[in-house]
């Protein structure tokens, strides 16, 4: 079966979710490009958008329409060539409409898993629950006579475990997009020891056509991305708890978040990032990793405590941030959760005192939005970390402490045989997490 044939019948599971919708969009665009090739004219192409929620599927179709329109506008030069023979399509607006209608005509929004029984390829982006994934894979595999391939978006579950338990015979690969899939360039590619070569070959070709940067990871729970993030998370929590004898819970969260954002020139502080991913999702990932890597304590009681209080983070369907450790208004942090009173305290009451305790940022601290685009990172960050070292303030010490740990986490991913090399770790943090510099560096 060729690449083009494989894409003739595809299903995306969890298609209306945060990750699934992006995967669906990218797959729909790729299928459209393939099916519009002259040699594929007249062949049927179908993409099942499978999700449990009808309501979410309606929202998905609106999202899809808007995004495909943008994609059409961006590649109008190519589309005019694709539609060169269509004498009725003259203006760009007519070509956009034709293309949007065509792409949407490939997509079938459905709520029944049975639709995947005809597919050659199944993308999975459901809840990070190993048992659920296994049971769904098994069900599709048993009822589908096409020997379908499974591309799972899991960010933590070992692929070999899914393969064995669902009895997929090596027809499964980890194809881990970053959020949001339509924008983030990174895909972590995880083969199990049984993954078939042709599955990997297809995955690489697919990623290339989607213009993604592929970083391979060994099949160890958490892989590179969450392997790093979850340990960063645990260390952030540890640092916050270390501040608590003298500081309130909310103050400690504010301080560590500020240090990990402003002092370390990251796009988000560690607690904002946890909110962005979702406390419940983080907790799931930690439990998956912990069950696979029992020798390391990957428990985070604080997360479970907060989840029990209904503090979960994550995003609304319009992409806006739900409240978690922090409370947001129009994307800005306005308050911080206080565990004792179980309510949010206004940032104004926390900020001034905490900023004074931390001490000022070094003069000329780079702004993340500029630093992320800077060409010579070393010229920017080597002197910055030197300045940080010379400060001798609590803020600078916390920042250096966290930076040393984040570097050690990265190095351990290589020595533990998760990442192939240090460069891959840095690539994941740079492209998947939009960091301005890699965690493994010589700046410290």
């Amino acid at each position: 079966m060729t690449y083009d044939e494989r894409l003739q019948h595809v299903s995306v599971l969890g298609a209306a979710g945060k990750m699934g919708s992006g995967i669906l969009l990218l797959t729909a665009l790729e299928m459209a490009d393939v099916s519009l090739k002259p040699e594929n004219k007249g062949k049927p192409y179908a993409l099942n958008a499978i999700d449990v929620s009808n309501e979410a599927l309606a929202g998905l179709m609106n999202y899809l329409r808007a995004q495909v329109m943008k994609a059409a506008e961006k590649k109008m030069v190519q589309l005019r060539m694709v539609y060169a023979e269509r004498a009725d399509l003259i203006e760009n607006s007519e070509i956009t409409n034709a293309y949007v209608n065509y792409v949407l005509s490939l997509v079938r929004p459905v709520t029944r898993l049975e639709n995947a029984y005809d597919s050659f390829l199944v993308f999975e982006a459901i809840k990070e629950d190993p048992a659920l994934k296994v049971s769904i894979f098994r069900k599709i595999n048993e009822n589908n006579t096409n020997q379908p391939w499974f591309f799972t978006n899991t960010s933590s579950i070992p692929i070999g475990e899914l393969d064995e338990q669902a009895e997929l015979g090596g027809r499964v690969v980890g194809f881990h997009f970053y959020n949001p899939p339509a924008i983030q360039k990174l895909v972590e590619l995880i083969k199990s020891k049984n993954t078939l070569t042709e599955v990997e070959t297809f995955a690489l070709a697919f990623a290339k056509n989607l213009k993604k940067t592929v970083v391979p990871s060994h099949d160890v729970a958490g892989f590179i991305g969450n392997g790093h993030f979850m340990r960063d998370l645990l260390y952030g929590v540890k640092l916050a708890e270390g501040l608590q004898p003298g500081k309130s819970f909310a103050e400690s969260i504010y301080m560590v978040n500020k240090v990990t954002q402003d002092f370390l020139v990251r796009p988000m502080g560690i607690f904002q990032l946890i909110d962005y991913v979702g406390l419940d999702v983080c907790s799931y990932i930690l439990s998956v990793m912990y069950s696979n890597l029992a020798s390391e304590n990957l428990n985070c009681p604080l997360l479970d405590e907060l989840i029990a209080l209904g503090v979960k983070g994550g995003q609304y369907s319009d992409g806006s941030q739900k409240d978690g450790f922090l409370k947001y208004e129009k994307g800005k942090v306005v308050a911080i959760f206080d565990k004792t009173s179980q309510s949010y305290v206004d940032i104004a009451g926390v900020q001034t005192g905490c900023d004074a305790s931390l001490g000022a940022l070094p003069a000329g601290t780079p702004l993340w939005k500029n630093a992320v685009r800077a060409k010579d990172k070393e010229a920017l960050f080597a002197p910055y970390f030197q300045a940080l070292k010379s400060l001798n303030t609590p803020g600078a010490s916390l920042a250096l402490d966290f930076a040393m740990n984040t570097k050690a986490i990265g190095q351990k991913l290589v020595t533990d045989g998760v990442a192939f090399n240090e460069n891959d770790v840095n690539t994941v943090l740079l492209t998947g997490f939009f960091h301005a510099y890699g965690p493994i560096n010589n700046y410290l």
Partner: protein
Amino acid sequence: MVAGYNTISMGTGRKEFNPKKERPGLEHYLKEAGQATLQMIGGAQNVDECVMGNFIASRFNGQANMAAFFPFIDEGLRFKPAIRVEGACATGALALVSGVRSILAETAEVVLVIGVEVQNTVKAIYGADYLAAAGWAKNRKDGHAYFFPGQFSDRAGAYYERFGRDKTRQAFARWFRNAIENARLCPTAQEHHNTTGDLEALAMMEPNGKSFVDNLNVFDCSKVSDGASSIAIVSEEGLKRIGIPKSEAIEIIGWGQAAEDITLPPSDLCELTTVKNAAAKAFKSAGITHEQLATAEVHDCFTIAGILSTEALGFAKQGEGPDFVLAGETSRTGRIPMNTTGGLIGWGHPTGATGVHMAVTILEQLTGKAGANQIEIKPERPYGLTVNMGGDDKTLVAIVYKRGE
């Protein structure tokens, strides 16, 4: 001509421009420009006729019958004769010429001329469809997604091939730099807020045919603009009526008009043949040569059109326009300062208004009212020139002016 006025050229580049927010429409720009000129000439009662220049509001704004906006600008214009003219990007100058003809025909002593366009109502990729109407509609299907950039990219490609790519691209970059530097001096210019350090380095960005066109980058292109320009065309008797001395006016010494077959491709991609024809007629009609010009406003819808204009006007031989520009001869201190408020690339290109804006710039320069943009006007070279082009060298108007005496 007297009482010139330009609104801001609104669009990307202006700090106050936000594509996501609601913006002023045609009505706003027409009122601002029209009322400003009316105030300078003593009010609407002094106007005999009105001419509106607008290219394609029918598509950008769903609006036709534009002449009927004059009474909206000022109630005093109610029931006065008004007409709207169109000739793609040469619309503004056609509006001027239409007014001039009324003066010559003695049906009017004072003609109010306004050019207007509001183009930021749709994304550029769809605006390209509307603007493509300046070419032959039957060529649209085979044309580029960005139709006109595609046309002029072909001209640039042919020019690279015949006269060398590197030097030509450097000359484009210099043209861009001159445009932005002039625009920075002009508060109404779209690029007035531009703070880029090395403009020429920026403009040397390699063209990318996959996302845009093969031989030009975005800095080689004029702006997508909203704006209006207005001016009054007045006979000697009219000047007396409105009480403005001749020295505050510019006189039209001569002009040349020309149209070329819209269905034909350019006879020579490396020459603006119709520009050359219209300019020659203008010089002949004025009884001058290009040597006597103090300044010229040329139609730099793309940098390549700017370079080709230096050749079509006689300042450089074919193939030597890039040298002329790179030698600094078109800069504000050069032999012939061109587009002293930034031209279509720096000031902006609200298509139907552009021809009028050119005349307003010449009026300001020749009467010493160009403010920070003022260049030196030497007595031995007292003339100004505007060249306004519609489509790819299809509809042309060239006008020669001199300060009133």
